[in-house]
């Protein structure tokens, strides 16, 4: 056996052996210490106060595991149903195409006309003859409402709304 190899083998064997003995000695003589009474009381008091701070639930939590699964599974269904309901509802506010709602009132020497037909842009013509409207006198309306001064000279006035 070569000397260098001998020493290397001897060292690793000695190291392994020493480690084994050290582990055995440590395991054999390791302490079975216990907590002091003070420490033990502190731990148990902390555990009790944690339990006391969490009062019993009057109503079961929504978020217990089975309920979580149920809610998670139901959510897509709920969303789908909600979407169907929304899609099937009629569009709010706007009248049906082709129908017009007019609100007309008179106040302080003026006539107020509110036009609702789904559009806010109109041209309003005024005439005392229902069969004759002068296009050059048309008034553009952009907010769905029209205001006109009362004509003292005429007893009847006609309005055409385009």
């Amino acid at each position: 056996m070569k000397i260098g190899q001998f020493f290397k083998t001897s060292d690793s064997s000695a190291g392994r052996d020493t480690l084994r003995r050290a582990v055995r000695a440590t395991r054999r003589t390791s302490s079975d210490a216990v907590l002091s009474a003070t420490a033990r009381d502190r731990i148990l008091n902390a555990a009790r106060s944690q339990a006391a701070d969490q009062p019993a639930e009057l109503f079961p939590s929504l978020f217990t595991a089975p309920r979580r699964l149920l809610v998670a599974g139901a959510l897509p269904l709920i969303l789908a149903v909600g979407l169907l309901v929304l899609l099937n509802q009629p569009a709010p506010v706007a009248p049906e195409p082709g129908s017009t709602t007019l609100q007309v009132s008179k106040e302080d020497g003026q006539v107020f006309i509110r036009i609702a037909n789904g559009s806010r842009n109109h041209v309003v013509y005024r005439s005392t003859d229902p069969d004759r409207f002068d296009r050059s006198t048309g008034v553009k309306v952009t907010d769905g409402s029209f205001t006109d001064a009362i004509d003292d000279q005429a007893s009847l006035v006609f309005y055409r709304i385009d």
Partner: protein
Amino acid sequence: MASYSDPETSDETLARAAQQGEVRALETLLDRHQSKVLRILGFLGVPAQDCEDVAQEVFVRVFRHLKGFRTGQSFGAWIYRVTVNAAHDYRTRKGRRAAGETGWQDGLESAPDERPGPAESARERELREALGQALETLTERERSVFVLRELEGLETAEVARSLGISAITVRRHLFRARRRLRTILADLEKRNPLSVERIVPDGSSHG
């Protein structure tokens, strides 16, 4: 009804009872695991004077998170993990580094009174101190693995469960830890020979 003081009652049964607020179950868990926790904290480098404080942290954490303990989990593995983490947190707080800081051997001065004879005791003390010095040179993970596997005697699978790593990783860390410790102990022995048998080429042994 389960008897909480019955040694046959499993940790898992006690943990479930403790989840329901059964204080006797808590006390039994504490009694069962306190020595182990204190011992491991000592092995992992927490000085004796701080072991009790850190052990309190361990148990408070365990009991605080008891509601998250699930059926099928190993309570033992869980408490090992909390202990290792608490030791790591302690060392991080104290800013300790691997070499040169030993609090470990301090913990062993409170060893129980079962005494071997004086000669053996001195040798064992030497060996323990040498191992304590050597453990300080390991990484946190190598040290945890070595302590749980070699000093606590856990199986590889249980060490893996306790530390949240694979069995292969446990074996790798253990291999490195043993190799490092053997080298250090051999060097220490050269500089300050311990009473260890040496094998010489002719097959005889010398003390």
